[in-house]
């Protein structure tokens, strides 16, 4: 026969003021809530990250496809003995070459409209009849051309700043981008690059979101700012040569 004695100990709880206990309980509850919230946040972050990954992947395919198509067309044409006339450039990068003094009012206005308010400022511009005419007006003050993918990428990654609350804020993370351009479907840097390079539907929103690029003076120097590129100088449309220049300015 086993007799179990249950010893009831009179445990004296430590006397803790009620406010402290309340505070502790609150803290614990809050912590639990916070963890839940954070779990959600982490999840969404993960989702976003995979999204950006897939998008980047997709874009690379797209760019490559485009490139190869071009090449293919050329080759086919060559075979047949025909000529391929490539489409006119839709994207331009415009740099202000000259300073702010003694500028003709018309030119001044055009530069203002392009947000080129400082020397060595650059912006992406969609090329159409209207903008081309504007560029013509401001020609002696700007150097422009058709940037390639690398240029666009480098500009956005290295020199990319956002206009947030009228402030020039560096593009430090994708959350910033998704916050302001999310509703346009642009959530990461690659999206921005894609939108600019392919001159998409939301080109204006994206370029407006970006602060005008502040570039360095080119290493190796200018040729002659006072002449057109064609004349051995620097201003005006230099088409693809802009990439060389920008490599030295970014």
């Amino acid at each position, binding site marked *: 026969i086993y007799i179990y004695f249950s010893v009831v100990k009179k445990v004296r709880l430590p006397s803790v003021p009620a406010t402290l206990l309340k505070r502790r309980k609150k803290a614990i509850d809050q912590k639990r809530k916070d963890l839940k919230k954070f779990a959600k946040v982490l999840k969404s972050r993960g989702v976003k990250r995979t999204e950006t*990954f897939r998008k*980047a*992947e997709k874009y690379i395919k797209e760019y490559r496809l485009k490139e190869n198509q071009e090449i293919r067309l050329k080759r086919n044409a060559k075979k047949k003995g025909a000529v391929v006339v490539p489409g006119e450039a839709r994207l331009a990068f415009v740099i202000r070459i000259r300073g702010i003094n003694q500028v003709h009012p018309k030119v001044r206005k055009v530069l203002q409209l392009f947000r080129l308010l400082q020397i060595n400022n650059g912006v992406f511009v969609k090329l159409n009849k209207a903008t081309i005419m504007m560029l013509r007006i401001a020609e002696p003050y700007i150097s422009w051309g058709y940037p390639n993918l690398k240029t666009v990428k480098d500009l956005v*990654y290295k020199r990319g700043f956002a206009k947030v609350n009228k402030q020039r804020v560096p593009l430090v993370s994708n959350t910033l981008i998704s916050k302001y351009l999310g509703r346009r479907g642009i959530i990461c840097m690659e999206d921005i690059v894609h939108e600019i390079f392919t001159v998409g539907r939301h080109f204006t929103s994206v370029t407006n979101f970006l602060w005008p690029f502040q570039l360095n003076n080119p290493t190796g120097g200018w040729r002659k700012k006072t002449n057109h590129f064609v004349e051995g100088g620097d201003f005006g449309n230099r088409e693809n040569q802009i990439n060389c220049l920008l490599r030295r300015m970014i």
Partner: protein
Amino acid sequence: MATVNARPLVSVHQDGTVTASSISLPAIFRAPIRPDVVNFVHDQIAKNTRQPYAVSKDAGHQTSAESWGTGRAVARIPRVRGGGTHRSGQGAFGNMCRGGRMFAPTRVWRRWHRKVNVTQRRYAMVSAIAASGSPALVMSKGHIIHETPEVPLVVGDKVEEAKTTKEAMMFLRKCRAWSDVLKVYKSKRFRAGVGKMRNRRRIQRTGPLIVYNKDQGLVKAFRGIPGADTIQVKRLNLLKLAPGGHVGRFVIWTESAFRKLDKLYGTWRKPSKLKTNYNLPTPKMTNTDLMRIIQSDEIQNVIKRPNRKVLRRTPKLNPLTNKKYMGKLNPYANVERKLAQYNQKIKIERKEILRKKKAGELPAKISKEEKARTAIPPKKKEPREKVEPKKIKYIGKKMKRTKKPKSGDAAAKKGKLQKAPLKPGKPKPGASKGVKTGKTKPLPSKDSKTGKAKPLSSKDGKTGKAKPLPSKDGKTKKTKPLPSKDGKTKKTKPLPTKDGKTGGTKPVPSKAKQVGKPKGETAKAATAKPATSKPATPKSATSKPSQPKSTPKKDAKPTPKQDKPKQAASKK
């Protein structure tokens, strides 16, 4: 600070002991203590006992001086008339002149006294009395009340009848208020400054204040005790209750005086009886315990959480040079980079091959066999000598070599779900399922030291079949054994296998078993060879369990397992 309604009992002390009688604390002691009001009122009231001072009204003007004007090579100050004395021609009247009047001579009609509103005066009074009921404030004023039995100290009326200073002293001793008086004694000193010669030579501290109702000798008795002051309760004086404009004087109340306070100043419920139209000042806050208020449930449940987040400037780093930072912005960047590196490598190799071709080091056209050989990493058709696999430290789960190989379908399925590694034959930029690039570049040869291709590991760490070699992720769930020189692979790849066959892969037979029985079985095999070489094939059909393990390649080699049943059969 206690709430308005809490009114404790104050016991009356007599001859050093507590008497039976106790009085509930008068409401005045719960009134708001406003040191600012007290200070202001004290300043104003202190001016009221001033005696005027001024210089003589005709000082400096008791001359008939007149200015000599210009042209006399002297200053234009009025000069004393006449002659025959030093004084003649001297400057007069001006404050700068010797014997002239001072600038702005002081006048008696200066406003010496100040009016203070009655209610304001009473407010200050009430504050001062309330402060005297707080031991903290009394102590901070500097009174020695460590030994006093109670604050406010209420004493029996017997002291009102004290006749001699001795009695007064004994009383204070019994009250334990004597140490305060002692402090006064010790503080007797000369005044610093010119006041010494202006009949204000000595100064001392203030001691206890005795408030009485009826003077039956008390005033005269306490006259001789330095520092001690006496006051009748009906004529309380702010200058005595808050000397220097600072609250917290040590007050000793007689019982009858104490009882009068409620009548004098009223309680909030009842106005004062002895003052017309007066009631105690209402405090701005009923509960001044700020900490308690803040910690109360009502407030704690409503307030927002403290924002301890410190927003710091995140420095912008150049993603073109900083890989980590680039990865943060573009998680695909790593893949891109590795792909680019890989492609470059391939390009270089191809160039090298072309160069060699041109130079004649390589044949211009490579035979099919050669192509086949070089395109795919060489797989030795003859089974190698059984070599114990190197004991490599696997990161993650250890692969058990003794296990049965899983069915081909399951492996294939699994393989497809995971990220496919890049084969040398087919560079794929997108390492996810279903991704197909436009081009597949067949390579002539590749550095075939590694039996497998390098898997492009994404930054996510989803390296399905990554090498167990330095993976910083550590997230590789299943590590594959190194592409060993044996060519043993446990798991099959989803991509076209080395055979060149797609789809379901055949399980590679576990050589482990065969490895496990090298010596014993080889001996058997050696002996059994001549006997079983021919009948091995028909009997392979009979022995079923061993069949799935054998590939067509290995039919030539007699399996040791087949010997057993045969032997058993033979024995039978």
